[in-house]
């Protein structure tokens, strides 16, 4: 192919990657702020993901938006894995880090051949597990992974660094303070959150994410080539695609084409259509314009293909069955009680675990930072599903953001009126620590904050012996369970500094009675 065209194709690819990465972060950041009435559609990237289409088919009821996922699948049949090379924002990040690591090095970063097949095996494990209700695809799906890591680590981390850098600068007395101060004020108004957002597992999720990015310095596009289950889906389809890169008679077998190839292949040696992400770096690297771009029927011509291996597939299937069964036989499956609450709109737990793709869109959307990625609260398979942690934030009464951004309706889309009625749990007072009982003096901070129109937290005036042994009139707090919706603001604002004397538990949560 002509050198000029090659350069143009490569530039176009990079522009496309920039655009989709920008779009991804634009939509993600939009979902956190702004008025609840003007929510943008953040689900776009989830709806074009065939893995989430699969989750939706299994968990139902079918959402038409997921039909969008057929578009990249069909396009892959024509072009091959263009999605990984041109669209995927996480792919773009990995590409960027690979490029960084490769720059100016004589010894280029490589990709080991056997590692390429690992993602197919992983896909088999995850798909098989999902058939048996153990839905773990979201752990590694690139959109879930990127959304979750950004919400929990990348965005709050960047917020922290900017805040601290500008804040200390703004406090300088000299001329530097005079420059930084307006910058700080502006960024506080438009960029930073007033209160730093904090997350359970922020370090773990962040280290996992940055670790994956760092691995690109040792293996080209490590995540995409080795782990990505979505890449495996596209790789499988791309095997039958029409577009390919045949060689013409100019080829001198110099091997320059593999210099910047995403999977360290080369069209003359081992061109693997299932792995080619159409980055077109090879066209550009070839000194003799020996590589063409052509549409050909899949069967025509000799093709090398990645051999995953029948025994490995069987082994992966075995692992998949284990991954299906093991999470389903923990005691938490039988126990009535559990010590966590879910965000509003959450469907019954069994269904929830099937529907939730652990993407963390709700973590980003929650304005009060109440929604957190679970650790082991709901078992091993519940890792990174959203739970409400009132000590960190409360469920804002006038808000439905999380139920609107959930792509799979694991949090059912609620209207504001429905949400105000939706009971996510019930507050319980600990009479041995509540000041109004234990010490015998007034407090009522929880009563003040209770947002339901007829307050679910009330007090009655009684005469008690206080902590000095004196008979005093005290307004003692009590909860009316039928009025309480479990928003958790009472637990959030309780002034006790050892443990809140009022806490929301899953008692009477609506989702378990709603089917």
């Amino acid at each position, binding site marked *: 192919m002509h050198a000029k065209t090659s350069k143009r194709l490569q530039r176009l690819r990079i522009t496309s990657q920039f655009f989709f990465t920008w779009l991804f972060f634009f939509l993600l950041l939009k979902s956190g*702020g702004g*008025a609840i009435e003007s929510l943008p559609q953040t689900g776009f990237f989830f709806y074009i993901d065939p893995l989430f289409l699969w989750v939706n088919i299994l968990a139902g009821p079918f959402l038409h938006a997921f039909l969008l996922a057929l578009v990249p699948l069909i396009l892959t049949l024509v072009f091959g894995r263009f999605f990984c090379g041109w669209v995927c924002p996480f792919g773009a990040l990995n590409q960027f880090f690979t490029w960084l690591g490769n720059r100016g090095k004589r010894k280029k970063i490589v990709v080991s051949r056997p590692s390429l097949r690992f993602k197919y095996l992983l896909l088999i494990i995850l798909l098989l597990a999902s058939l048996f209700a153990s839905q773990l695809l979201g752990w590694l799906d690139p959109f879930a992974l990127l959304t979750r890591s950004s919400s929990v680590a990348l965005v709050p981390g960047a917020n922290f660094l900017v805040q601290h850098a500008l*804040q200390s600068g703004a*406090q300088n007395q000299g001329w530097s303070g005079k420059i930084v101060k307006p910058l700080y*004020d502006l960024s*506080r*108004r438009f960029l930073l*959150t*007033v*209160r730093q957002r904090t997350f359970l597992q922020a370090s773990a999720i962040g280290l996992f994410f940055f670790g994956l990015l760092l691995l690109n310095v040792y293996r080209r596009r490590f995540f995409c080539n080795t782990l990505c289950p979505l890449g495996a889906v596209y790789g499988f389809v791309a095997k039958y695609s029409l577009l390919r890169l045949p060689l013409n008679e100019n080829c001198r077998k110099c091997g320059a084409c593999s210099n910047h190839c995403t999977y360290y292949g080369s069209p003359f040696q081992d061109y693997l259509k299932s792995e080619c992400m159409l980055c077109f770096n090879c066209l550009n690297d070839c000194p003799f314009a020996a590589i063409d771009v052509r549409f050909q029927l899949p069967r025509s011509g000799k093709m090398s293909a990645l051999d995953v291996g029948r025994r490995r597939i069987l082994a992966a299937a075995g692992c998949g069955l284990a991954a299906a069964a093991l999470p389903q036989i923990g005691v938490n499956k039988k126990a009535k009680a559990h010590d966590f609450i879910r965000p509003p709109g959450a469907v019954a737990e069994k269904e929830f675990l099937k529907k939730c793709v652990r993407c963390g869109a709700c973590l980003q959307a929650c*304005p*009060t930072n109440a929604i957190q990625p679970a650790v082991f609260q709901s078992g091993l398979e519940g890792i990174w599903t959203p739970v409400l942690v009132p000590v960190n934030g409360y469920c*804002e*009464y*006038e*808000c439905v953001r999380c139920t609107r951004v959930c792509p799979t309706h694991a949090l059912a889309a609620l209207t504001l009126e429905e949400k105000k009625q939706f009971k996510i749990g019930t507050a319980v007072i600990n009479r041995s620590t509540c*000041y109004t009982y234990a010490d015998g*003096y*007034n*407090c*009522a*901070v929880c*009563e*003040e*904050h*209770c*947002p*339901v*129109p*007829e*307050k679910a937290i009330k*007090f009655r005036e009684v005469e008690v012996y206080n902590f000095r042994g004196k008979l005093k009139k005290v*307004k003692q707090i009590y909860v009316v369970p039928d009025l309480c919706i479990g928003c958790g603001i009472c637990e959030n*604002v*309780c*002034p006790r*500094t050892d443990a809140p004397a009022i806490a929301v538990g899953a008692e009477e949560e609506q989702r378990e009675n709603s089917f």
Partner: protein
Amino acid sequence: MKRRTFVKNGVMFSSGLLLAGQVRAQDKPGSAAPVIQVKGASPYEITKKAVAEIGGMGKIVSRGDVVMVKPNIGWNRTVEQAACTNPEVLRAVIELVFDAGAKKVVVMDNTCHKAEDCYQRSGIEAMARKLGADVRYSDESRLVVHNFKGEYLSKWPVFRDHLEVDKFINVPILKHHGSSGLTIAMKNLYGILGGNRGKLHRDMGENIAELAAGFRSHLVVVDAYRILLRNGPVGGRLSDVEMRKTVVASTNIMHADVAAAVLFGKDPREVEFLQAAHAKKMGEIDIAKIPVKSLAI
């Protein structure tokens, strides 16, 4: 128990001394500062009228002053729900302050709900920015420990912004409040505080009074245009809101609160923080002893 009694007596004695000094420092303690009460259809007009009747903003704000206008923006609620100060009342105050020659007007509160939501939903942020006021979020890096020199409330973290201004204008909304009975101007000062404010709900009446005694409000304009009668301070239900179409203004924070309490339909003598303020000689608790001028426009 002996040590405890000793410490208690010590604290009582020394804070008593401090307090005596404090009261003297207040301008004309116990003198019957007048209260202006204006009723009318427009919250903007009645506010302007009330300030004019006090003697005009020029009496309070000097040319070149930096002025804090402190509304109640505590909650993520709309104007109709009457949990935050009416932006129209605030608009009148900010305009008057600028007209009096102020260099800068700062508007801020330490909110109970998420700050961004409260500022936006109350309508206060957009309005104040349009007038050119400096609308700030409470920034925890700007907390300093301030000594209120009270018996119950002494050292407590305060946002520096409130201490660095020349004049402080307190513009609360009159509301029902579960534990303190009412929230008006004195309680509105909780918004200058940081830290674990929930702790101040023990002995709340004394804390509110000592807070108001230890931190001067140069002018108080109480928004009683819409008042929340039940389920305060957060409210939410429109049936709990009643139109009173009134603004109450005074240079004495206690007198403003006493008049507003009467307007609400409560006997000031039954409101704990007013009792405590009365005991500190911050003003009259008997409405009959306060010169109240009522107007309707």
